[in-house]
């Protein structure tokens, strides 16, 4: 479905990554694969370092840390927050919503909206759309959009397809009205019939966690995984991205009359370097325009990946310039989305470490 939003803008981006860094070279000793093959995988996929939370650290901890940083540095005032959107698939609790917990921990005002949306990899674009819709309400002038996940908790240490690439992080993005007559175009698609390609089978109410769901099973490709763990059908996801994402982006550009050359950057969700290179090749976009290095430094951090690209690859540029970008988020659902907008100048655009 096509969307058009008027007079909205992103004014600040902060990404919070855990201090704790793991390296593929050390972790590959856990896998049931010969070292040479693992190193090949590292080369092709672009695995290297990733950031992972310590046990006991949750989404609300990362978010509270980031927001306190913004309050302390004068970038944001508590009372300015009219809505807190928290997009996650790894909430602190089933009950209550994590946005309420953050609101309580930070003593934010009662006259605000707290909303938890369940989404992962496509969650930044979806969250932006939600923020834009909220800003059309008179009483909402500033939306804090949070994307956050601690999916490393659900990665089987014996699953080479998942374990080395998952990273944890939170992003805090301020979204406000734009005094200029700006236009943002987006497209969003869903296909629930393929939902099983990216799932955590147990843990919810369909199949609660038990002793059985924690047992590692040989899933047939030398990897071991439990029903409590994150499952990704790698081939299906690769095909999904290659088939659905280019037409979505190209359709969006065609509808808006914007050529690929006129787009400065394609800022995509970062599943791994390999997939992004293939996507760039398919779309005939130079690698430099489609940054793909987030995974090798931070891991695939779910809905935070696009804000991480923004803060990592365009750190200083966006403080001074405005660029035209096309965002693309795709993943769990299955969901795929694209958004064309101008980005910058931002009043802050940084990555900080959670201690």
């Amino acid at each position: 479905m096509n969307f058009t939003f008027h007079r909205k803008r992103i004014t600040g981006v902060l990404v919070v990554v855990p201090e704790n860094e793991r390296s593929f070279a050390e972790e590959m000793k856990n896998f049931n694969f010969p070292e040479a093959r693992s190193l090949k995988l590292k080369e092709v996929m672009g695995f290297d370092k990733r950031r992972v939370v310590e046990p006991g650290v949750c989404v609300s901890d990362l978010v509270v840390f980031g927001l306190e940083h913004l309050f302390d540095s004068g970038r944001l005032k508590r009372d300015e927050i009219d809505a807190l959107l928290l997009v996650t698939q790894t909430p602190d609790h089933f009950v209550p919503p994590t946005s309420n917990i953050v609101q309580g921990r930070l003593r934010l005002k009662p006259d605000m909206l707290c909303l938890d949306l369940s989404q992962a990899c496509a969650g930044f674009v979806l969250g932006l759309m939600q923020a834009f819709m909220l800003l059309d309400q008179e009483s909402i002038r500033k939306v804090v959009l949070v994307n956050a996940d601690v999916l490393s908790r659900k990665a089987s240490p014996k699953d080479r397809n998942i374990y080395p690439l998952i990273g944890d992080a939170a992003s805090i993005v301020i979204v406000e009205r734009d005094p200029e007559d700006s236009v943002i175009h987006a497209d969003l698609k869903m296909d629930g019939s393929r939902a099983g390609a990216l799932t955590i089978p147990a843990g919810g109410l369909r199949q609660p966690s038990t002793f059985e769901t924690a047992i590692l099973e040989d899933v047939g490709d030398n990897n071991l995984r439990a029903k409590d763990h994150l499952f990704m059908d790698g081939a299906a996801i690769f095909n999904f991205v290659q088939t659905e994402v280019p037409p979505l982006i190209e359709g969006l550009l065609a509808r808006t009359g914007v050529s690929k050359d006129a787009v400065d950057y394609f800022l995509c969700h970062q599943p791994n370097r390999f997939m992004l290179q293939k996507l760039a090749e398919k779309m005939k976009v130079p690698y430099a325009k489609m940054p793909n290095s987030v995974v090798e430094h931070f891991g695939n951090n779910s809905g935070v990946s696009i804000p991480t690209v923004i803060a990592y690859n365009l750190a200083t540029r966006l403080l001074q310039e405005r660029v035209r970008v096309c965002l693309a988020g795709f993943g769990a659902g299955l969901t795929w989305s694209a958004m064309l907008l101008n980005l910058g100048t931002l009043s802050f655009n940084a990555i900080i470490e959670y201690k």
Partner: protein
Amino acid sequence: MKSIFKHKKISAIVSVVPKEEYRFDDEYPAFKLSPEKAKRFKKMMSLDRHRIAPPEVCSSDLCLYGLQQLLKDGTLKKEEIGALVFVSQTPDYFMPPTSNVIHGKIGLGPDVICLDINQGCAGFLLGLVQAFLLLEISALPKVVLLNGDTCSKQMDKCNRISYPLTGDAGSVAVIERCEDENPIYVDIKNDGSRYKAILVPAGAYRTPASPETIKLNEVEEGVMQSEQHIHMDGAAIFNFTMDSVPPQVDETLAFSGDTRDSIDWFLFHQPNPFILTQMAEKMKIPAEKLPNNIVSLYGNCSSVTIPLNIAQNCAEPLKDKSLRVCFSGFGVGLTWLTMVMNLGPLPVCKIVDYQAG
């Protein structure tokens, strides 16, 4: 947060309850209650019966069934669905979102927005707000709001304090645009500093599920509870409800220019009849205008109590009339939300029993 939404209406409501009904009189021996204590409890909370879903039935199954009924009887067509909003605190999975799973089971096209919102007691009203926001997108035809919870799975069946008051249910509401302005006045407030008053401590990411968290602990004589169960501070919730909801109702009535007399029905979330009677008294609302029978008939089913309240108590008058209603949902979060609007006519407004398969 105060807002006014215009040109929106609810056009159909179907609530779905498990057909398995259990009566307090049959259940109380399992609670280790003496007949006298049981009698006292039953009287105080006006307990009678509740509906409990079998183990294999989830919130999404109840909602899906309701949606299938609306599609089958022609009230709704697949191509009219622009968005599926699923509000629950008992989702099928952590990943993917349950709304996507329902999307796949119904077989909807790619141009349908699927959103999962985590909320409980205030969840029907929050879901309505979400639907109103989505309907500002002119290309979006109708929004299907699904509320569903199986809170019975988040407690021990012998927990005499919680279990008899709890019910499982799902609801489907169709929301669309209308010609009339029909302004809808909303006030939303949150106080997360008191979030522990209604909490499931373990099972998600703060404290993952483990052999420890499944263990039952005795919290009061004969009352067993694990860390994966709902922990409710009854007294804190009572005080919160009595302190926070009446002022918000007054505020919202002032906002909409209404008085107690101009409102036909006060359709509140139903935690239990005891607290609702207290509230009606405190707010000087005549008891006939504030139905409080849902817990006695179905149990407290989280956000579904409001749609059940509408269907149980107002279906007849709403068939061909419009009524001025004041909704209020309060609880988990802690969140409290009051909404004043014209409701109806609602030609489709019913409660059905869930049929599997």
